[in-house]
């Protein structure tokens, strides 16, 4: 029965389309939409659309078809569904040329949606637009302006800018506002056409109509952002803008522009934005707008979203133009209220704004730290993301311990996309602010465990570098990492990699008892971990490679379980991946060469650089040397001279005296060797580890403490190595220290450095305030191949000082 009905329907359809064709009537838009909606599969839908596209295409051949509008309307629907419709471009242009408004309306709509800037029909469009812009019917001109605003190409802009300018000068508000936005698009596309519009824009701001005012504000904002000259020109308009804003604020109820009790919030927001552009870095202009900003901030009703939209914009303006401090406090308080708002949108913008203003007023933002940390627990991903970014922006030496706790809780349950970013940011933050290495290490182990497989590779290499470079934590690190690997670590491959590397390098330290009451670790325990992890299919290839290398190294550090180790090394001799197979085969051979292997498998040399170090200096706003500073500027800043008597001061934002207590805690003296945890053979105490402030372009500068504080004086040695193939001429080293210190440089051992040679220079630092941390900024200059080269670097702490 059902099939019979369907057959009948199909028959009727057929007849219908035949009759339709003979009468020349194409399907109605409504019918097309119904057919598309009735399609059960994508294939069916495609069939319907393809068939109709073919019909439309065919009917386009007939030039005086009365159904053009209908066809274009159908085509636009097809276009929205994602099927090709570009063949209708020409037809749109024909419609636009008709005199009927209906034709023009659909024609221009089609042009806006189907045309693109590269289209070859552009010349046609330009001509039609030119005719219609001057049309006496306002709606036709309106359509033309609207189209121009959507699809203006550079040539169109040049051809039609003058027409647009004429319309701006006319006395028709409906067209004026459209023309102003057209001018905005033109200026954005072809900035040099700005001149055409500057004279007429001023008068626009005197208009009464809010639409025109809004268009004008948009246009002025764009022009000011493009050109500093224009910006200065329009600064004169600040009193006008202030007046408009005041009227909006004081006008009370006007039914026309009222949005839930607030007069035209859109215009207010636009004007506040323009004020921000005009007032930036200009004290006088800022002065002029302080009053009105305060009024807006205090008089705006905040019960509704619109009110908050205005307040939000006001806060941004206050913070960006660096208003007087009273106003800034008001702004930050508003943000504080926003943060506590129950509306998630408001909380989101508050976090966003705090993130933007953290550079302007760090202390003020710090005050909201607790609320920000709370936001890490928000169920909304957008808010959590902002809160996380803000947390890292707010971390510093005093709060890192407290904030890390919260971040770690967050990391535990965070989505995959956060884990990776959070892990690398945690590394950077802990490297900068950790109270001590032990805490740093523990925190990072937790991070590695929580972030699991999402930890980026650079964090692994940085962790390894950290352990390699800090002798005093190696013993502690190896036992902690061993325990971490012993617990369920198969889900955290990066953690296993760090653990394996460390166990391999420092396996001997692992066996020494670290603590009286901890159970000693036996070789057996260690090998068991490898035996459990290495053969597992869940272990990644890279981890296995780390593991094999570690095992090879352990042969020289362990004594009783050599056979078990060798069995494990040999296990992968037939592995499908060459990397692992090669390690397995080659280490197996090396392990049999008893006289060679001890030398080959010695401890790795200390790694001094890591890939995130660069990132660390770049976020260090308060003291990072600006790489673009010219030589003269730096010299002026630091007042460096090589004469012995003159002490050098470094302008430092961190006030050393006020933070003395904090720095005390972080004082990084070598830990006394009677500390049980660090009971490792310290390198000769008088031989402090050198720091490397500069290592670039083949020139490395090391600074080493020769004598620590004696009568508040310390002696340092600078050694500059030349690894380039050429001689460095006129090598000059400059150094500056914080205000609490005075530095004097002795003459250098030689002004020129041969390839693979080095030069040395001694310096003496005198301490004026006890217990301050010596920080140094360094600069080198030399001539290589006839051109002058420079380099800069910074030391935040010296081992031994």
């Amino acid at each position, binding site marked *: 029965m059902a099939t019979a009905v369907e057959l009948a329907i199909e028959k009727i359809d057929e*007849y*219908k389309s035949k009759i339709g064709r003979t009468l020349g009537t194409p399907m109605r838009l409504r019918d097309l939409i119904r057919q598309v*909606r009735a399609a059960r599969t994508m294939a069916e839908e495609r069939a319907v659309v393809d068939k109709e596209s073919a019909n439309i295409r065919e009917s386009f051949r007939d030039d005086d078809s009365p159904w053009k509008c209908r066809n274009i309307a159908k085509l636009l629907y097809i276009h929205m569904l994602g099927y090709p419709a570009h063949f209708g471009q020409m037809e749109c242009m024909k419609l636009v040329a008709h005199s009927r408004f*209906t034709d023009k309306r659909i024609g221009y709509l089609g042009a806006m949606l189907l045309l693109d800037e590269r289209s070859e029909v552009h010349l046609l469009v330009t001509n039609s637009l030119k005719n219609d812009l001057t049309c006496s019917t306002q709606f036709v001109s309106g359509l033309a302006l609207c189209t121009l605003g959507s699809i203006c190409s550079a040539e169109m802009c040049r051809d039609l800018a003058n027409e647009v300018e004429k319309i701006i000068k006319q006395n028709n508000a409906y067209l004026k506002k459209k023309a102003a936005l057209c001018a905005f698009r033109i200026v954005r596309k072809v900035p040099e056409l700005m001149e055409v519009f500057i004279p007429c824009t001023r008068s626009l701001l005197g208009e009464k109509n809010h*639409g025109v005012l*809004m268009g004008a504000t948009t246009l002025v904002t764009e022009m000011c952002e493009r050109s500093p000259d224009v910006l200065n020109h329009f600064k004169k308009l600040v009193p006008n803008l202030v007046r408009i804003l005041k009227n909006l604020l004081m006008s009370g109820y006007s039914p026309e522009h009222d949005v839930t009790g607030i007069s*035209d919030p859109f215009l207010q927001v636009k004007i506040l934005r323009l004020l921000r552009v005009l007032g930036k870095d200009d004290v006088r202009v800022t002065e002029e707008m302080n009053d009105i900003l305060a009024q807006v901030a205090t008089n705006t009703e905040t019960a509704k979203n619109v009110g908050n939209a205005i307040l939000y*914009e006001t806060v941004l303006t206050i913070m960006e133009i660096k208003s007087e401090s009273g106003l800034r406090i008001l702004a930050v308080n508003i943000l504080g209220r926003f943060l506590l708002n129950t509306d998630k*949108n408001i909380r989101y913008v508050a976090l966003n704004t705090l993130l933007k203003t953290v550079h302007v007023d760090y202390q003020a933002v710090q005050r909201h730290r607790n609320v920000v940390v709370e936001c890490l627990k928000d169920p909304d991903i*957008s808010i959590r993301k902002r809160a996380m970014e803000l947390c890292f922006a707010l971390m510093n030496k005093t709060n890192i311990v407290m904030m890390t706790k919260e971040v770690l809780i967050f990391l535990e349950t965070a989505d995959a996309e956060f884990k990776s970013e959070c892990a690398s940011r945690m590394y950077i933050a802990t490297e900068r602010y950790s109270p001590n290495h032990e805490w740093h290490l523990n925190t990072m182990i937790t991070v590695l465990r929580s972030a699991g497989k999402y930890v980026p590779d650079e964090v692994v290499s940085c962790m390894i570098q950290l352990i390699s470079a800090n002798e005093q934590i190696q013993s502690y690190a190896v036992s902690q990492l061993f325990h971490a690997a012993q617990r369920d670590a198969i889900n955290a491959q990066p953690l296993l990699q760090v653990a394996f590397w460390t166990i391999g390098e420092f396996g001997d330290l692992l066996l020494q008892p670290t603590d009286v009451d901890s159970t000693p670790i036996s070789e057996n325990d260690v090998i068991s971990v490898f035996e459990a992890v290495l053969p597992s299919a869940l272990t990644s290839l890279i981890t296995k490679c780390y593991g094999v290398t570690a095992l090879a190294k352990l042969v020289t550090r362990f004594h009783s379980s050599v056979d078990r180790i060798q069995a494990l090394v040999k296990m992968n001799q037939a592995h499908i991946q060459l990397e692992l197979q090669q390690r397995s085969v080659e280490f197996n051979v090396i392990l049999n060469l008893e006289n060679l292997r001890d030398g080959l498998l010695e401890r790795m040399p200390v790694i001094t650089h890591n890939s995130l170090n660069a990132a660390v200096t770049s976020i260090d706003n308060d003291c990072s040397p600006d790489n673009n500073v010219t030589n003269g500027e730096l010299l002026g800043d630091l007042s460096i001279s090589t004469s012995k008597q003159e002490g050098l001061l470094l302008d430092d934002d961190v006030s050393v005296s006020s933070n003395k207590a904090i720095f005390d805690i972080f004082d990084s003296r070598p830990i006394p060797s009677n500390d049980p945890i660090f009971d490792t053979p310290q390198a000769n105490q008088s031989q402090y580890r050198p720091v490397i402030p500069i290592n670039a372009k083949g020139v490395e500068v090391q600074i080493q403490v020769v004598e620590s504080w004696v009568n508040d004086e310390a002696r340092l040695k600078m050694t500059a190595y030349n690894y380039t193939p050429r001689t460095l001429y006129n090598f000059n080293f400059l150094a500056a220290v914080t205000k609490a210190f005075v530095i004097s440089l002795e003459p250098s051992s030689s002004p020129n450095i041969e390839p693979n040679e080095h030069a040395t220079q001694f310096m003496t630092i005198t301490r004026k305030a006890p217990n301050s941390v010596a920080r140094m900024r360094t600069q080198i200059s030399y001539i290589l191949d006839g051109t002058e080269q420079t380099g800069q670097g910074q030391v935040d702490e010296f081992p031994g000082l």
Partner: protein
Amino acid sequence: MIKAILVINNHGKPRLLKFYQHYSEEMQQQIVRETFQLVSKRDDNVCNFLEGGTLIDGNDYRLIYRHYATLYFIFCVDSSESELGILDLIQVFVETLDRCFENVCELDLIFHVDRVHHILGEIVMGGMVLETNMNEILQRIQEQDKIQKQEAGITAAPARAVSAVKNMNISQQLKDIKLPDLPSLSNLKNAF
């Protein structure tokens, strides 16, 4: 600047696409799909802002959306727009639609895409807010519709004659009956 305005229904079908920057047809569809995926997995009680779309201009790009009954109204904007301001703009747009169509529902948008485009054209132009005064917008739309009606009076006669033939279309009428009755945007008026 507003880069794009998308209206997508709960099943990911586009109901209105307006891009203020040129994208190829494929790209437009890709943006629609990506945007829908991002928006549709969010609960109704989270905030209306979203980052993470990759297709439009990389980083400087946010989605601001409101969900009404069966439709998502999504504005893709760059950082020069105020987030809260755009939220209000969406409200203005939807309220205007509601007044034009009298209790607007998804079907109105489906069968009158051109009209929705015309309305939008009076609110946003070239990616910038043009007019937010609802009475002004409605008045201009009505004036233009009136011109169209007058013109139709002169030339519509032949079209009407033909449409009589169309009424033979039984299959289509059957389908008309089956059309689902979509709930109107009931929470519209008090969403502010």
